[in-house]
């Protein structure tokens, strides 16, 4: 359940937010920035997702991750896709993976095996702006045996997904529930028409956990370390539900009072 990376990111963001004055909320700006970035990997504490306060958090704070492939720096948000022209269009499964002898060479088998994790690979396109501002719509998606409640702009840590690379677009097909402020669409068990689009941000290892076994009075103790392999996905879009149109109230021209602009949701 817990990826330690998830907890670290949360604590990091909590400290940055506490240092920032929370009364200034930023309305939905026409900048391609993922607003309302909250991490929803099974934290039992309820994060208030109505406030897009995570806009103000700075992201680059000394990440330590060992991603494979290209240099995808997380410094700029919307430019994950147009970072380099290094498109690895080669067949990922053919050459390198000799550790596990599975015959994944035909692309159709890849698709079939990817269905187990309930994702479908989309092509990766550099120089494409995917990241939309936050919309108050959520979906419950299942990946493997874990379920996540996601919304636009969230990042998720899942078990390592085998058949995708960094900067790959994924479509998560197993959607169990769609919800918004006015509407709830329940799938029995899944919704066939709903899709959730995500982008693979990184393949990384979790923080090391020490496994210590001891039997007392029997002179037995063992220490092992373990790093779990994770994939970080960023959710870009949810389709299959009507999204409420936010009506932006423009701020008055007075610079003295910073009013809270209220985005009225017309359901």
């Amino acid at each position, binding site marked *: *359940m*817990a990826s330690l990376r998830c907890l670290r990111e949360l604590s990091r963001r909590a400290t940055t937010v506490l240092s920032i004055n929370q009364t200034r909320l930023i309305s939905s700006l026409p900048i391609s920035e993922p607003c309302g970035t909250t991490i*929803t990997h*099974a934290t*039992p504490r*309820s994060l208030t*997702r109505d406030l897009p306060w995570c806009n103000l958090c700075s992201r680059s704070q000394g990440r330590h991750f060992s991603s494979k492939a290209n240099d995808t720096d997380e410094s700029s948000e919307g430019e994950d896709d147009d970072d380099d022209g290094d498109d690895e269009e080669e067949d990922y499964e053919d050459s390198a993976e000799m550790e596990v002898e599975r015959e994944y060479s035909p692309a159709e088998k890849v698709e079939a095996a990817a269905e187990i994790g309930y994702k479908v690979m989309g092509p990766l396109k550099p120089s494409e702006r995917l990241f939309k501002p936050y919309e108050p719509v*959520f979906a*419950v998606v*299942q990946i493997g045996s874990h*379920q*996540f*409640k996601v919304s636009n702009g969230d990042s998720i840590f899942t078990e390592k997904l085998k058949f995708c690379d960094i900067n790959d677009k994924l479509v998560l097909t197993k959607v*169990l*529930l769609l*919800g918004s402020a006015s509407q*709830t669409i*329940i*799938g*029995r*068990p*899944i919704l066939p028409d709903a899709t959730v689009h995500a982008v693979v941000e990184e393949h990384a290892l979790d923080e090391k*956990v*020490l*496994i*210590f*076994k*001891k039997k007392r009075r029997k002179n037995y*103790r063992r*220490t092992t370390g373990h790093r779990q392999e994770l994939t970080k996905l960023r959710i870009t879009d949810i389709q299959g539900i009507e999204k409420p149109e936010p009506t932006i109230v423009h701020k008055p021209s007075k610079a003295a009072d910073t009013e809270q602009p209220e985005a009225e949701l017309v359901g």
Partner: protein
Amino acid sequence: MTRIKRGYIARRRRTKLRLFASSFQGAHSRLMRERTMTQQRIRALVSARRDKKKRKRDFRRLWITRINAVIHETEVFYSYNRFIHNLYKKQLLLNRKILAQIALLNRSCLYTISNEIKK
């Protein structure tokens, strides 16, 4: 055999121990020669291992409690067990973690779900 000085081997090990036990209370973070720190480190690691397994149980209990609390408010004589039974009858696959999150954040959503299920 050539003479070998032990150099910084012991110091490294002790520094690591010190760092690990640095947040412990009282003598448990201070006494290295009386072996208190070593023992407390062992106890900490053993607890960690045991509680990793317990954590899954604990959270499931928490989720069930939360769902139960919200479900009781919907109707008289309606409770968690009936809710889950109806959930399985209508072939929904939502797990308790998600239901608890929905119960916290989008409570109206959960009411919608429970009304759908009861039909």
